[in-house]
């Protein structure tokens, strides 16, 4: 089953089995709930954003190994990063998901998800938490997806994601 091994790398299964940053973030600035209605995967992502930095992130949800491992890796990668850096990671991640060669600087474990691009039915599983992250940042920081000042490849590459979302921004976010 060599091609299965391309998808289910050890590090992915490690994140699935021992998730990082899974749980609730009581003082979150943004809580994003996303669901992929075609398969039932759902995720709640909570972000704590201060001074243009992602101070903390936690996720919770139900889904397959790929969606949950991706969420775990994503939170690990963005905590402590500047918002722009996180969005840049998302940009490069989505390009990797459609099979493009990308600069993998800062990817670390995320690189293990590269094999997903060979399994088109599973790309949406991998991108769900990343979309939640983008959505949370954009709503929290009032970034406009259409303004062009930030690249949003997830929405460009996968316009037909069909994901249902609900974003709750904490009161402090409007200050």
């Amino acid at each position, binding site marked *: *089953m060599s*091609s*299965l091994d391309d*998808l*289910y790398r*050890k590090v992915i*299964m490690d994140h699935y*089995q021992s998730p990082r940053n899974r749980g609730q973030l009581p003082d979150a600035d943004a809580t994003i709930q996303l669901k992929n209605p*075609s*398969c*039932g*995967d*759902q995720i709640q992502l909570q972000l704590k954003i201060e001074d243009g930095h992602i101070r903390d992130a936690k996720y919770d949800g*139900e*889904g*397959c*190994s*790929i*969606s949950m491992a991706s969420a775990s890796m994503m939170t690990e990668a963005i905590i402590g990063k500047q918002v722009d850096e996180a969005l840049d990671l998302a940009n490069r991640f989505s390009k990797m998901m459609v099979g493009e060669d990308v600069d993998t600087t800062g990817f670390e474990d995320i690189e293990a998800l590269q094999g997903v691009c060979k*399994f088109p*039915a*599973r790309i949406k*599983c991998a991108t769900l938490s990343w979309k939640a992250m983008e959505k949370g940042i954009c709503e929290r920081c009032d970034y406009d997806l259409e303004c062009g000042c930030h690249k949003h490849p997830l929405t460009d590459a996968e316009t037909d994601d069909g994901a249902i979302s609900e974003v709750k921004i904490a009161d402090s976010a409007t200050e």
Partner: protein
Amino acid sequence: MFGNEIREQFPILKQRVNDKPLIYLDSAATAHKPLAVINAVDDFYRNYNSNIHRGSHALALRATDAYEAAREKVRKFINARHDSEIVFNRGASSGINFVAQSYGMANVNEGDEILISLMEHHSNIIPWQQLAKKRGAVLKYLPLYPDGTIKLADVREMVTDRTKIVAITHISNVLGTINPVKEIVEIAHQKGAVVLIDGAQGAPHKRVDVQNINCDFYIISGHKMGGPTGIGAVYGKKQLLDNMEPIEFGGEMMGTVGLYDSTWKDAPLKFETGTMPIAGAIGLGAMIDFLEEIGMDKVEAHENELVNYALGRFANFPGLTIYGPLTNRSSLISFNLEGVHPHDIATVLDLAGIAIRAGEHCAEPLTRFLQVPATARASFYIYNTREEIDILYSELEKTKEYFGNVFA
């Protein structure tokens, strides 16, 4: 069990997927088309493509005859009394929406009740939610029991003098449960409610006799039987259809058109607005011929053998949970394998050439009732074999082993 003679008729099954012979266990999503259907559609476009009911030339007359012949085939297939009781449309979803918007909007009023069950497909939930909202009616759900069935005692209790519509699936697309539709109809009629049976998973697998069931509406999907996509049919009792208003207006459904008002044709044509899926109807007619030639009793017997064989084999599979009743069920099994998410199962099986479905199967309330995020589903049809179930079994064993190892 059918031999290879049925399977041979389905050219799509001759291919390899991921370098393995295709094993298609997703017929509850859509069934494959035999040569007879493919050829009937090909013949229409190749030899007599024309619009129906409006042309006066030879091809148009031929197309009209073929389209109306398909209606007669549907009538006979489900033993309706009149051709005019068969309305063609786009599929099961559009059929249920049609009844909800036409019959429902005219007959359901504030405080009235609509009764459905927890095992319905979204197509038999959302149209009623919308109707209930628009009319200020109350939507009620028949409860489900752990064995995946509903109880007639609940039907007796929940159908009240305020119940206007009972809508229930003939066969659950997740559990395989075959509902006691005839008995439900009897109870509902005693209180004056009309009954719609969602036959999307019924008509492909069981002999349906709408006069015997005595339902008021029966919903048919073409593609789930092996007909083309984009065609379906609603059976409605004549006196109901005669008194129902169209929900779409325009070409071909009208009688006379004045500047400010118009009249309609008689049912069913008043409901068939614009150019219909003509090739689809003709293809569906060809599929019905195909099934009738086999005999629906034999179809049912073949599928019963398959599902009983599968249930028997999988009963002792360690860590595997099968949902739904163990007896009186249709030819599909939804399951979960401990420690492996259904999507992961589907991916592993796909690499072995096996097509199953993973997810909520358009039945979110039911999935929630089962208290699982998703299930995997293998569904069988006339072309499936015991050997395919054996391969499914051994591939699931490998799946379990693989995930056991990557976790190790």
